[in-house]
């Protein structure tokens, strides 16, 4: 299907070397809307919304931020660390505003699985249902979300 100039611009912004060094698509060669579509369907199967995922990531982000510069144990299950850096980056989907540079790393101490995200990831999940392409350092696999992020509740 023909892409609009805006869609082409977004696809370009997601490439390596435009906004970040490695970009947002990893080794996933699909158009970004196809990635979103597949992840959206997976969320529907899991009965969870992008807002709920974003809220959960924001919850860990806020607590880790308050702990300042070191790992913190949250709810006895999650070890979370927030590393912040100077500077800000824009949203590749052309939203106004800048997002702080930083990496939040969460290790689920029950299943021993680890995921990593940035403040920009929370925005992209909430507003665009974009979890990044497969193979990026900050890709969160929707099918792992329940196991890793909602351990206690599930």
């Amino acid at each position, binding site marked *: 299907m023909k892409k609009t100039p805006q869609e082409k611009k977004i696809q370009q912004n997601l*490439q*390596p070397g435009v906004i*970040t060094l490695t970009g947002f698509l990893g080794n996933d060669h699909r158009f970004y809307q196809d990635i979103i579509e597949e992840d959206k369907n997976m969320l529907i199967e899991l009965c969870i919304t992008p807002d709920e995922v974003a809220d959960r990531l924001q919850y860990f982000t806020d607590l880790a931020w308050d702990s*300042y*510069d070191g790992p913190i144990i949250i709810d006895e299950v999650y070890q979370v660390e927030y590393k912040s850096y100077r500077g800000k980056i*824009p949203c590749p989907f*052309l939203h*106004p505003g800048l997002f702080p540079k930083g*990496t939040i790393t969460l290790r689920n101490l029950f299943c021993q699985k680890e995921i990593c995200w940035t403040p920009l990831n929370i925005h992209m999940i909430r507003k665009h249902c974009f979890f990044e392409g497969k193979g990026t350092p900050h890709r969160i696999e929707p099918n792992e979300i329940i196991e890793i992020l909602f351990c206690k509740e599930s």
Partner: protein
Amino acid sequence: MIISILMTVGIVAGIGGFFALLLIIAESTLMNYGECTITINDKKKITEKGGSSLLTTLNNNKIFLSSACGGRGSCGFCKCKILKGGGPLLPTELPFLDEQEKKDMVRLACQVKVKEDISIEIPEDIFAIQEFAGKVTSIKDMTYDIKELTIELTMPKEIEFKAGQYVQFVAPRYEKSRQSVTRAYSISSNPDHKKFIELIVRKVPDGLCTTYIHDYLKEGDTVNFTGPFGDFLIQDTHKDMIFIAGGSGKAPVKSMLEYLKAHKSKRKMTYLFGARTEKDLYHVELMKKLEDDLEHFEFVPILSKPDEGSKWSGKTGYIMPFLKEFIGKPENTEAYLCGSPGMIDAVIKELHNLKITDEQIFFDPFS
């Protein structure tokens, strides 16, 4: 059948092409805004062909408003007051403007298209901002992820700046980037030295500009930057100064301390520098030397996680609990902060607990 399909496709393509041509002609004739005059601060006038953004038009005339996103409307740095002209406020500007700024007719220069005569107001300091070219004369490893660059100015040959200000460094398109990128870095050298600047740059994971500086830039290379920007400056008072920094946040503090030393400051100064391990410490000897040179200066490195078995005998932990020890009279103290946003946020909270008000706290805008 095939012929009629091909004819239909041809006719549709022809009609599309005709309208595209019509649009191009309309844009170049009907959308011709002619010469527009921009009046700046009621005294300077520039005249340019209309149609470009205000930011671009000003840049073309060597007037550089701060911008971290290259005019994409995503950083909100290029604010200026538009007293006349400029059209209505756009939805793309709203997230960056508070109510007071809207009342004060503040706009984002990158979003305002020059279509008519415009009258604007910008800080006088902006006229001092210039484009510079320089040669990298030295690149030193400060730690495993921090480098210090020395750039000798070639065009123009001198820079006027104040301690604490920053430049916007341009990393050209290189192997790992698809376009040139601009990032802000504080100047770490003494402003009395006008023929060169020093920058301290920490490598940011996935960072386009810091990867260029760390992995591609070589001594002898030519670099470009604009500046100076920023109002993170030494306040002209006699109050005690407490500097709090971490990582590459040492840059503006080093510039300030070297300036204060050169000008024989008698102010009481304490510098708390937070790092994780001894591997993250740098310029320690330089700071110790400043303790000898400045009458009332103390340098206090603090490690949050010294390596097991290390011989570290200094203070251990986060900076915040030590602040109380070094703040004599809160009302007579100014705090200068530079470091990661997490550190700055945590330190500000503790300073508030110690009765230091926001008016006494100064930090970089791009932290």
